[in-house]
Structures are given as structure tokens and as C-alpha cells.
């Protein structure tokens, strides 16, 4: 459906390098990356607002790389919505109808159709200036959908909306996806990406780091960057992996070894789930994957505490509020932690 082949673009110090991916018809494709990763630039290239230095864009078999933005049929919803402030909501939605030869009735019925989908029929005669952020976002979506784009590009569509409205918006986007709209959605938020994507592509400093179904990316992050983005902080590079009896001994730092039931090739990585790290009493013998260390930080959140244990290398352990009462942990305490064999996952 949409094919990006080796798109490169330099702008000042920043550069997109060899970006290639394929989006199928009806697919919900999410580009995830921190700000400054080049996501918006990539969308603008697909929409035709910027020309790539090299590479090509093909949509439905049609080479579009040098086709002007107003002839591409690609819809883009800007992060700041870019609603025309001097036009009513109705005229904003109908903006793309010019020159299509629609009768007045047809214009009206098409506007109504998209206004109903976006649940903004009561706003049609209003000027944008009095509308809320969520309403403006819906108008922007309706306006772009009204042009019946081959691909819908969304630049951070949930940003600067409050939580309840974000939920409404996610439902709307899911509805569009179910109706068969091909969507490329750009975000910096892993949870947002996870909740919507068929395919998740992670972009960092102008390069694609990993692509795949979100569950797979979450299970097997390809790099420290990806794991950090997905919220995994126990991500270690495997320096050496040796077979010891029926286990594998993985060196992650000089003097620090993790035991795993699976091998890990050098330069690959190993991750540990935060909620599977256990705190042990400091008596008894030291077993495999048991470390003594000091608590350097305790970070509270509504459902759990993140406890940072320095045992020559930092481990992040997740402790529920209930557990915290029993364990009575404090910053500066020396503690013993155990990482179950099955929680050490080479990726």
C-alpha cells in the first residue's frame, strides 16, 4: 500500500537515514520515538511538505516522491491541528471539497457524515476560537478525513489532551482503524503506541531501530534505547556467555554474572522484569542470581515503588505498596535481592 524506500534527508545537524518501511492497506502503523527523533519530518516527507534528499515513496503502486503535496491524496493532522481560525467548523471540514464538483447538498451531507463520526455536529456553525482542545482535535481529524485520504498521518494525536479525552480519542482512532482506514501515527508514548498499533516501528536519531508487532517489540527490545522507551530499565549488554552445567552464566559487568536457562550471544542483551526481583533476608547462603547491594533511591508511584539497588550495577525492582509495608525499605539500607532464573531474558 505505502512503501518507503531508503528515505534520507539532512536538515542542519539532524538527518533521517535510510528509512524504509511498508504499511499495508488498513494497517495501524505507529512510529514511536523521543522528540527530535525525526518523526514529524518523516510525516512531512510522506505528505509532500518536504522533499527527501534521496529515496522514494510509493503509494498504491504510484511513485509519489516528487508529486506536489496538494496532489498526493495523503491526509496529515498536525500536532497543533492547524485549524483555519477565520473559518467556521463546517467550512474547515469542507475545505478539501473545493473543485471536486460537489453540489451544495452533497457538501452538506459529507460534512455531516464526518461531523457525526467525530461527534461534533453541534459545533458546525461555531468559529474555532471558542472550542476546547479535544474539540479542535476532532475538527482537525474530520477535516482531514473528509478528503478521504489514502493514508491518514497523525502527528501526536493524543498530546495536550487530558486523560479522559485521550481515552475518547483512542476509541475514535480504533473506530477509524476498524473502518479500514490506513493510519500512520507518530508518538513518543509507549502505552499509546501499544494500545493502538498493529505494527510498531521505533525511530531514534533519524534511524529505525526496530519494527514489529508491539507485543514482540516489548518482549524483545532490540536495543537499550528501545527497552528504555518501552519502560524496561533493567537492560544489560551481554559481555560473555558460558555454559555452566545446565545453565548459562552471562557476564554483564566485570565481576557481575547473571544465570539464565537460555544462552546469550556476546554483544546481545539481557533484560530483567522489574516486578520479578525479590528481596531476601540477609542470612543464609548466597545462591546464583543473588546480589547484595545498597538502596540508592526509592521512587513512589500510585501503584508501586521503584527501588533502585546498586549491587555494582543498578537493578530496578518494583515493589507493591503492600510488600513495601512488610519489607520496610529505606534509602541507604543494604539489602539482598534475588532474580529468578526465568526472569533473566536474553534478547
Amino acid at each position, binding site marked *: 500500500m505505502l512503501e518507503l524506500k531508503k528515505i534520507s534527508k539532512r536538515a542542519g545537524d539532524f538527518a533521517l537515514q535510510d528509512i524504509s518501511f511498508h504499511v499495508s492497506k488498513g494497517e495501524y502503523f505507529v512510529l514511536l520515538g523521543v522528540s527530535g527523533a525525526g518523526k514529524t519530518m518523516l510525516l512531512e516527507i510522506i505528505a509532500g511538505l518536504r522533499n527527501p534528499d534521496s529515496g522514494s515513496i510509493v503509494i498504491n503502486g504510484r511513485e509519489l516522491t516528487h508529486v506536489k503535496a496538494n496532489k498526493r491524496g495523503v491526509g496529515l493532522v498536525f500536532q*497543533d491541528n492547524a485549524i483555519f481560525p477565520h473559518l467556521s467548523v463546517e467550512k474547515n471540514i469542507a*475545505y478539501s471539497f473545493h473543485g471536486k464538483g460537489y453540489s451544495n447538498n452533497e457538501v452538506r451531507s459529507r460534512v455531516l457524515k464526518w461531523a457525526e463520526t467525530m461527534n461534533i455536529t453541534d459545533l458546525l456553525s461555531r468559529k474555532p476560537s471558542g472550542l476546547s482542545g479535544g474539540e479542535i482535535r476532532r475538527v482537525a481529524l474530520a*477535516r482531514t478525513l473528509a478528503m478521504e485520504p489514502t493514508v491518514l498521518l497523525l502527528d501526536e494525536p493524543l498530546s495536550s489532551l487530558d486523560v479522559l479525552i485521550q481515552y475518547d480519542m483512542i476509541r475514535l482512532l480504533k473506530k477509524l482503524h476498524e473502518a479500514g482506514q490506513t493510519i500512520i501515527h507518530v508518538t513518543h508514548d509507549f502505552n499509546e503506541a501499544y494500545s493502538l498499533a498493529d505494527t510498531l516501528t521505533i525511530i531514534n536519531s533519524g534511524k529505525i531501530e526496530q519494527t514489529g508487532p508491539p507485543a514482540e517489540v516489548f518482549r524483545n527490545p532490540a536495543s537499550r534505547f528501545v527497552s528504555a522507551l518501552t519502560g524496561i530499565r533493567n537492560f544489560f549488554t551481554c559481555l560473555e556467555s558460558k555454559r555452566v552445567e545446565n545453565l548459562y552464566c552471562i557476564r554483564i559487568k566485570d565481576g557481575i554474572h547473571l544465570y539464565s536457562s537460555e544462552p546469550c550471544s556476546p554483544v546481545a542483551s539481557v533484560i530483567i522484569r522489574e516486578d520479578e526481583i525479590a528481596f531476601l533476608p540477609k542470612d543464609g547462603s548466597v545462591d546464583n542470581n543473588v546480589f547484595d547491594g545498597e538502596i540508592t533511591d526509592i521512587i513512589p508511584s500510585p501503584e508501586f515503588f521503584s527501588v533502585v539497588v546498586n549491587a555494582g550495577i543498578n537493578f530496578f525492582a518494583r515493589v507493591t505498596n503492600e510488600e513495601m509495608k512488610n519489607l520496610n525499605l529505606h534509602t541507604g539500607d543494604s539489602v539482598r535481592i534475588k532474580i529468578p532464573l526465568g526472569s533473566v531474558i536474553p534478547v
Partner: protein
Amino acid sequence: MSGIKSALISPFRIILILLGSLILLFLIAPIAGMFLATTVSDIFESAKDTEVRDSIWLTLFTAMGATLFTAIGAIPLAYILARKDFKLKRFVLGLIDLPIVIPHSAAGIAILGFISRDTAMGKFASNFGIDLVGHPAGISIAMAFVSLPFLINAARDGFISVPVRLEKAALVLGASPIRIFFSISLPLAWKNIVSGLIMMFARGMSEFGAVVIVAYHPMVTPVLIFERFGSFGLSYARPAAVLFILVSLLFFVVLRLLTKTKNA
């Protein structure tokens, strides 16, 4: 409350108000003085004078013509200057301000050299049987020359204030550049453009130096006032001046009101 009160009576505030009032007084006093020294019957008398009436009509007509005619090119130029970067852009911007900084009599000399019968422009006009020197068209050209910077700069500010993202959004929605200009850029910059048109019109109407060199006759009102003052003295020139100011004020108030309702 007490904070505001103490701020109001602070010595610094008093000095600010005092100095500001002096400047306001300086601006108001001469005009107020002129109005006070002129009786209503003087003004009526002046309004009945066909020479005065003709000159006011001529002034309004030539200034309006200069403004509307040059706007056709000035607004696109302002758009280019707001949106595009090119070599020598700073030079072009400086060039546009040139009429503001040169003496207007010098500007008049330059215009005269440009439109007199032996120049290309003069020959072109004479094909249509017009001698630009001493012609209302020549007056309009002189007015346009000295007042265009006001329109170009205001329109440019207006276009700069229109976010480029709105134009990009329109482009992605399938609009052609010309439709984007007329449906997005122009309406959103309209307030500044109208303000520029009014300023240019006002500046053109009040022009004396450049106009008097291009055309002493037919007389625009600033030249008429000067001529009456030179020939008959202050008391003779004053009623025409007051009448002209009243007509100008009326025009600007009406124009401002019209554009205000349009923008609201």
C-alpha cells in the same frame, strides 16, 4: 488594592504621567488652537469655495487611486517578502523604506524626471494623450511613491503573522497555492493590510513636497493651503486647513469602523 494605590502615587509614576502629558499636549495644542481660531461660519464659507471643494475631491480621488492601483502589486510583493528568503532581501527591504527617509521634495524631483514627456514613461502616457506632469495621474504617482512603504510594511507584517502551518495544512488538503493565498493568507492578514491601505491613503492625502513639484496645478489641498498662506496669509489658509482635517478625520473614522465590523 493597596498595592495598586501605592503604585499610582509612586514618584516614578508621577514623572511618567507628567512627561507623557507634555507630549500629548504638544500634539494636541497646535491643532486645537487652529480649530479654536476658526469659526464655524469660516468653515462653511470655505466649504462653499469651489476651489477648496475641488481640491479636496482631487486629493481624495488621487490618494485613493494611488492606493488601490498600487495595492495590486504591493500586496503580492509583501507576501513574497514575508514568505521567501532570497539573496539581497535585506537590500530590497531597505529600498522599500527609502521613500520614508529621503526628503520629499527630492522624491518629487526624482518622480518628475521619471514621468516628464521625454522619458519612456512620459512617452507611454502621451500615447494615450496624457501629459503626466500637471495631471491627476502624475499626482497619484507622486503620492504612491512616498506612501507605498506604509502599505508594503503593514501587509508584510500581516503575512508574517499568519502561521506557515496553516498554509501547509491547506496544501495537504489539496488546495492550489493561489487558492491558499486567497482563502487562507489574505483573509488572515486582512486586518494589517487594511490598516496599511488606510495609512497609505492618509499619507498620500497629506503629501505636499513631492506633489507640488510634479503638479502645482491642479491643486491638491496641501498645495492649496500653502498657496493661500503664501498669497493671503495665515487667516486665509486656516479655514481650508481645518476643513481638510475634518474631511480626513471623517474618512478615517468611517474606514476604521467599516473594517472593524468586517473583522468582527
